[in-house]
């Protein structure tokens, strides 16, 4: 009896501990973001106040208003940056998806010589640090005169996204049983038809998440963008964020507001793809 009691107490204690741990972990994960959102809503005076103001007194959307209200306060062309980011990210994502679908399908469905070596080779191109890659790209693009254009950034991001897109899409295609494509061929499809009628619709949600992942990579990239983009022609949001920093002062509130603008699409998209993303990454692990 005593032994039972002791174990029951222990189990209850562990349960409390678990909840506390979980709460703390989630707090650490969420707090920085919440802190940024909060500070984007209050005036600089309150941010700078000593002793700190814990309960916000003066909530307003001023920062957002001035940010999108044309070249208002600080004159930072957020609209342009936003537009550049969107154009570059979406275009590069679409192209990376098309290339990635072809490549992923090849890895998932065909046996060929040196398959794993090719795969590793692709991944290694992704492993090149952005800053190291930016040096030759900067020199070459400057020579070609395509520095500070959408085209150059799109080209870079396509190359950056292709390896990972292939990895993910390979995983999604492998989750579609080979039998299905074969059955479709027996049912009278050509290989091309079998792909579009059967394999593509089934891998569809996965491919969409690969796309979102690629989009976010482009959306968030900094190291290369900071060297290749120069002006409102092509500057993206991550680079634009630094406009709020001058040598000695930082416009904390403005930066926070811009940060929120960057985070919101990212978080929304993450929420949509989270389930598929993991299954695409891990499929190869269990099934080889």
């Amino acid at each position: 009896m005593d032994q039972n009691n002791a174990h029951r107490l222990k189990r209850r204690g562990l349960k409390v501990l678990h909840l506390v741990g979980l709460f703390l972990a989630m707090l650490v994960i969420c707090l920085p973001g919440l802190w940024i959102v909060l500070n984007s809503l209050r005036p600089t005076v309150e941010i700078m106040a000593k002793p700190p103001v814990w309960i916000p007194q003066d909530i307003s959307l001023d920062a957002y208003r001035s940010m999108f209200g044309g070249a208002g306060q600080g004159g930072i062309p957020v609209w342009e940056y936003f537009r550049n980011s969107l154009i570059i990210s979406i275009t590069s994502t679409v192209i990376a998806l098309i290339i990635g679908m072809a490549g992923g399908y090849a890895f998932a469905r065909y046996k060929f010589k040196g398959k794993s070596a090719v795969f590793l080779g692709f991944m290694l191109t992704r492993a090149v640090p952005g800053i190291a890659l930016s040096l030759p790209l900067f020199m070459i693009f400057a020579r070609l005169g395509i520095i500070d254009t959408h085209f150059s950034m799109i080209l870079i991001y396509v190359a950056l996204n292709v390896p990972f897109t292939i990895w993910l899409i390979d995983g999604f295609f492998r989750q579609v049983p080979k039998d299905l494509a074969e059955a479709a061929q027996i049912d009278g499809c050509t290989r091309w038809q079998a792909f579009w009628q059967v394999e593509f619709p089934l891998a569809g949600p996965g491919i969409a998440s690969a796309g979102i992942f690629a989009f976010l990579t482009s959306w968030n990239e900094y190291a290369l963008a900071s060297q290749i983009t120069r002006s409102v022609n092509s500057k993206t949001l991550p680079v634009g964020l630094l406009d709020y920093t001058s040598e000695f002062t930082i416009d904390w509130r403005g930066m926070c507001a811009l940060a929120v603008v960057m985070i919101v699409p990212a978080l929304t998209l993450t929420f949509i793809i989270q389930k598929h993303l993991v299954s695409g990454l891990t499929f190869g692990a269990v099934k080889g």
Partner: protein
Amino acid sequence: MAPVTLKKLVKRYGNVDVVHGIDLEVKDREFIALVGPSGCGKSTTLRMIAGLEDISDGVIEIGGKPVNDLPPRARNISMVFQSYALYPHMTVRENMGFSLKIGKVQQAEIDQRVNEAAAILDLEKYMDRRPSQLSGGQRQRVAMGRAIVRKPEVFLFDEPLSNLDAKLRTQVRTEIKRLHAKVQATMIYVTHDQVEAMTLSDRIVIMRDGYIEQVGTPEEVFKRPATRFVAGFIGSPPMNLNEATVDGGRLVLKGGQSLPLPLEFRNKVVAGEKVIFGLRPDDIYPTGHGLSSGEATDVHELSLPVSITEPLGNETLVFITLGEKEWVSRMLNPRPLAAGETIKLSFDLSQAHLFSAETGKTLRS
């Protein structure tokens, strides 16, 4: 008219041959089963007929015409997969009508043919469900329905019953047999289960390691197995097979005990020859408890102790030891036996098989 002919068919992966130039003629409207242990090349052969695997060498003809380079869709076949391969994103109706839709058949005719097939397979209630909402047996029937709708000349089955439980399996087996009677097409059926092959097919092809061991009717392969492998593969419980050496008129088993040489083989072996002696459990029986198979012309009787028994109700399997090996005998109209009890056993040597120990081939010519 769609006979299927394989001529010197070879499948090679790299340097490894998995199918070694097999020849086979499947007659029009015949139901033929390819049977063998896993890795014997039966599925590969079926997939080559379907056009899903390239043919390394040799020729496949369907309806008298070579189809080596035709894609699957041009071969006028349909196939039921082991996994059923139903399209998860389509309803049962769409699954069954898919091939016709791809073939640009009129919608009215698609509906009619799908409904016809659904009626045959008793699927009308499920037509608007997705595969994930169906039980294993229902999925299996949809897969067959999809095959029927195409009205192909040749049906291919790749172990279609292996994902069903035992009870359902017998049920669907009967359905397939009925289907064959109804649709009158050539059917090629791959299985590793010899019972399925025996019950369903007109002829059985037994394969091993990429070779055909024997082709014959179920009765032929059971009664006159061409090789030791076929003898062991067909029949349940399997045939008792034991090494023996010919010594005058006797077969000496390992361990010194011996049996008389079956009369049928008197002139077909020489003294000192090493052979495999085979006798089905049905042909070893406690005296008085066997099949009264007419005149037993060549029966030999031995007294042996029982080592273990497996009662099955209408019969009992009795295990005995002879020549260092365990033998199974089948006792009809059983009476209780105790382990260790010595009983009289009749060996019906007229039913015995002898195979060359060297080649495994039958010594019956």
